[in-house]
């Protein structure tokens, strides 16, 4: 280790469900270089100080969405956040807000997975189509209508950012609604009316009070707040017009 080695203090929220009553903070002094991410800082702690430190990661390049944590209170992907940007101050890393902690920095995402399933995240064709009818043709315009909402990597940072999800964990939440919108906007899909039941339900879009922080923290510029907002309008239309059209959403 050269003399000029820089050392940053990393404060980590630790929680071991087998021995701890509640989470507590522990500080580690981590030598780092300018190219080290916060994730690498955590890995250093695991390799050199405490092998039991638990956190999720995989790709190290902001694509798998598994390394989200609160970094100085802000939901971020730890693999694309750099220690040098915090030095010489201490940096605090904690499990993502609004989720139950499983161990250390790992949260329980089962509620989110259920929500993802509930929105029917796949194309449900308007009408049956046979192979000899050939492929679907989509214009650039039709493609642009939904492409932005396909970029979600399910990192759930938007949930950690959403005060309404924090208050009501039943709220379907930003990413699931963005994905729902992605399928509704796809010209090949015909299930918007079916999905409306969820959009318009008490768990649906009207939990949102237009805070917009979800879109701010989203590392993929999905803009989930926009998807939620558009679907508020859709749900309001459905609410008032459902008696006029034969095929409304929910009853």
């Amino acid at each position, binding site marked *: 280790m050269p003399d000029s080695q820089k050392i940053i203090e990393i404060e980590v929220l630790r929680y071991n469900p087998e021995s701890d009553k509640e989470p507590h903070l522990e500080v580690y002094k981590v030598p780092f270089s300018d190219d080290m991410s916060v994730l690498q800082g955590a890995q250093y702690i695991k390799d050199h100080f405490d092998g039991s430190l638990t956190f999720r990661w995989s790709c190290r390049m902001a694509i798998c969405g598994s390394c989200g944590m609160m970094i100085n209170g802000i939901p971020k992907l730890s693999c694309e956040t750099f220690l040098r940007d915090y030095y010489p101050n201490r940096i605090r890393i904690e499990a993502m807000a609004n989720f139950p902690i499983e161990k250390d920095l790992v949260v329980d995402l089962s509620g989110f997975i259920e929500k993802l399933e*509930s929105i*029917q995240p796949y194309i449900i064709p308007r009408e049956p189509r046979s192979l000899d009818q050939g492929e679907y043709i989509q214009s650039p315009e039709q493609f642009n209508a939904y492409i932005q909402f396909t970029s979600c990597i399910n990192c759930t940072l938007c949930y950690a950012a959403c*005060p309404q999800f924090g*208050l009501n964990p039943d709220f379907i939440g930003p990413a699931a609604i963005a994905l729902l919108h992605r399928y509704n906007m796809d010209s090949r899909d015909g299930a918007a009316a*079916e*999905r409306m*039941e*969820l959009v*318009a*339900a*008490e*768990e*649906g879009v*009207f939990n949102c*009070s237009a805070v917009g922080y979800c879109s701010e923290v989203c590392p993929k510029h999905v803009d989930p707040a926009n998807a939620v907002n558009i679907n*508020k309008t859709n*749900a*309001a239309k459905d*609410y*008032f017009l459902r008696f006029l059209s034969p095929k409304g*959403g*929910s*009853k």
Partner: protein
Amino acid sequence: MKSGLKRSNAPIFWSLFGAGGMFSALFGPVLVFITGIAVPLSLMLPSGTMSYPKMLAFAQNFIGKGFILAVISLFLWFAAHRIFHSLHEIGIHAGLGAKLICYGSAFVATVVSAVVLLRLGF
């Protein structure tokens, strides 16, 4: 899809909130200027702009009535919804009570102003 979903009644309140938000953004500032600054200080506007006979005539006109009702009622629905949700956000878990106070006052004010406006005649 989950079963047992209940449709939210929020669109009623949300639509009134949205309409009120738009209306207050369009007319709120200029109304504050006219009624709170220009008229009391006699700036820019001819004197007597808001004299009683003029205001009465305005309130007796069909469109005038509509405008006054919209200003009072939609502004209040907008405010009620904002306050209700802000309470929730700062941790006051607005149950039925807060809902009744917020939306109830907007509702009562709407009914009262509609009745008063109608009784002013045409």
